[in-house]
């Protein structure tokens, strides 16, 4: 019979690593309990082995086999439509610019829709991104109806036969029901042209436990298909996506690694888990 060779200090260290990365109490407790069982079965003896086990378990929680591809190809004679949503300042507009850059690099034609008609200079910011990566931006009147702008953008993209239309939306806190209704309307109005292919929720890696609530409410409103985890180039580990994945099953698809057009990368569960656990 295998006996526990790891000390309580080892376990405390694992727990603190996860908590310090914003994985949260519930997910951390579950992971640590499962690891304890596994370590007994595998007769894990050293802290180093334990670290590998943590990485493996975290990777497993993140669903390594999930489909994380972005649906951005024309289909049924229509452009793919991507809607980008999230709370204020998370990195939506920047992410739209970066995704456009990747698509243009792949030889695709892209159109941007500036459905943030609220924040000061938001449409200009998106248009600047468009110019940077060489794509056009459809914009509306300041303070105008965001759903109409989104509708117009998709209509224009359909006529121009582009591959993808990327719609940027205004930042909104999930607690503001009026703004969440507005977002739902943006999606419904766009769907008059056909189904939306991707709804990307942008989550800032520095976000704490509120991230799960954000993901839950946004997905109730507009059926999020994937998360983009931004600002991972900082010191934050972004562990909240572990809880998001575990509770809601929404996969992270992309990560943001800076403010430049090329600072976007696919999400790789194992590399993410390695970085979260660190070298300690």
């Amino acid at each position, binding site marked *: 019979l295998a006996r526990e060779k790891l000390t309580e200090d080892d376990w405390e260290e694992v727990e603190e690593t996860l908590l310090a990365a914003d994985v949260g109490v519930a997910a951390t407790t579950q992971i640590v309990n499962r690891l304890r069982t596994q370590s007994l079965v595998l007769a894990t003896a050293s802290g180093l082995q334990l670290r590998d086990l943590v990485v493996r378990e975290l990777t497993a929680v993140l669903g390594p086999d999930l489909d994380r591809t972005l649906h951005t190809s024309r289909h049924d004679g229509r452009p793919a439509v991507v809607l980008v949503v999230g709370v204020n300042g998370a990195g939506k507009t920047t992410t739209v610019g970066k995704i456009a850059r990747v698509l243009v690099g792949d030889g695709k034609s892209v159109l941007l829709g500036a459905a943030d008609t609220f924040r*000061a200079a938001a449409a200009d910011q998106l248009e600047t991104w468009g110019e940077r990566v060489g794509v056009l931006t459809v914009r509306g009147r300041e303070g105008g109806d965001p759903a109409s702008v989104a509708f117009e953008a998709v209509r224009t993209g359909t006529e121009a036969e582009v591959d993808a239309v990327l719609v940027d939306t205004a930042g909104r806190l999930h607690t503001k029901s009026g703004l969440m209704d507005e977002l739902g309307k943006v999606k419904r109005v766009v769907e008059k042209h056909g189904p939306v292919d991707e709804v990307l929720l942008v989550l800032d890696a520095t976000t704490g436990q509120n991230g799960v*609530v954000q993901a839950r409410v946004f997905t109730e409103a507009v059926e999020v298909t994937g998360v983009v985890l931004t600002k991972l180039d900082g010191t934050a580990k972004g562990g909240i996506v572990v809880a998001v994945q575990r509770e809601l099953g929404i996969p992270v698809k992309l990560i943001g690694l800076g403010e430049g057009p090329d600072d976007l990368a696919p999400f790789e569960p194992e590399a993410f888990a390695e970085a979260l656990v660190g070298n300690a």
Partner: protein
Amino acid sequence: MFETLSDRLDKVFTGLRGKGRLSDEDIDATAREIRIALLEADVALPVVRSFITAVKERARGSEVSAALNPAQQIIKIVNEELVGILGGETRRIRYAKQSPTVIMLAGLQGAGKTTLAGKLGRWLKAQGHTPLLVACDLQRPNAVQQLSVVAGQAGVDVYAPEPGNGVGDPIAVARDSIDHARRTQHDVVVVDTAGRLGIDAELMAQAAGIRDAVSPDETLFVVDAMIGQDAVTTATAFQEGVGFSGVVLTKLDGDARGGAALSVRHVTGQPIMFASTGEKLADFDVFHPERMASRILGM
């Protein structure tokens, strides 16, 4: 969504009512529940640790009063400790003896600095000042324009001599803004800066350069109430990199518990001066420690 601390403690103390003094086991069980509540509120781990030590110390020494049940008593202690850390003396903006007073804003990307510049502008104007907003974010696409728009909404002037989007030297703009403010008789200068990461040495040096160019009377660290465990690392990096004299907590109109308030206050010792509570320029208030304590505890 989370269980409140009072619910948790009530469970711990079921059947304990009127027991006189809390045993060590009671206190340990209590400490575990407080720890979970604070972690769920995003209070940073090292801060949780020292906070709990302080609470345990007090709980051990205190007599369980007849009027309050043990749970209520502990909550009272936790609440008092929280308010103690968050509050201290409430500090107002320190105005310079000789105009202009300079307020510099610094923080992570997307925290709410530019919006805050507009809010401060509006607020200062209402108090009879003539603020000038200075556009030193020459990096983020259309940040200069964004500041100009919020200045317009606030009905205050803006100094934006450079177009930004990568063009212009923020340190030079900051330096020139002081002369400009004197010439144009503005008595408060609010310097908006680009968002930057704590570990970005180059941009942190730029922030220090802006600081040295304007010698701020107040440097406000702007931090998103939704931030999690990274609050300590980031606050420390800004304190070492630029230094700050006050904190502004933003996006408090959401439902994040805002444990960062405790973390930042605890590790930097700097007071939280203002709360930002919405996207509109009027959504701005001085900071209320008692409200924040109840919020962190989920009450």
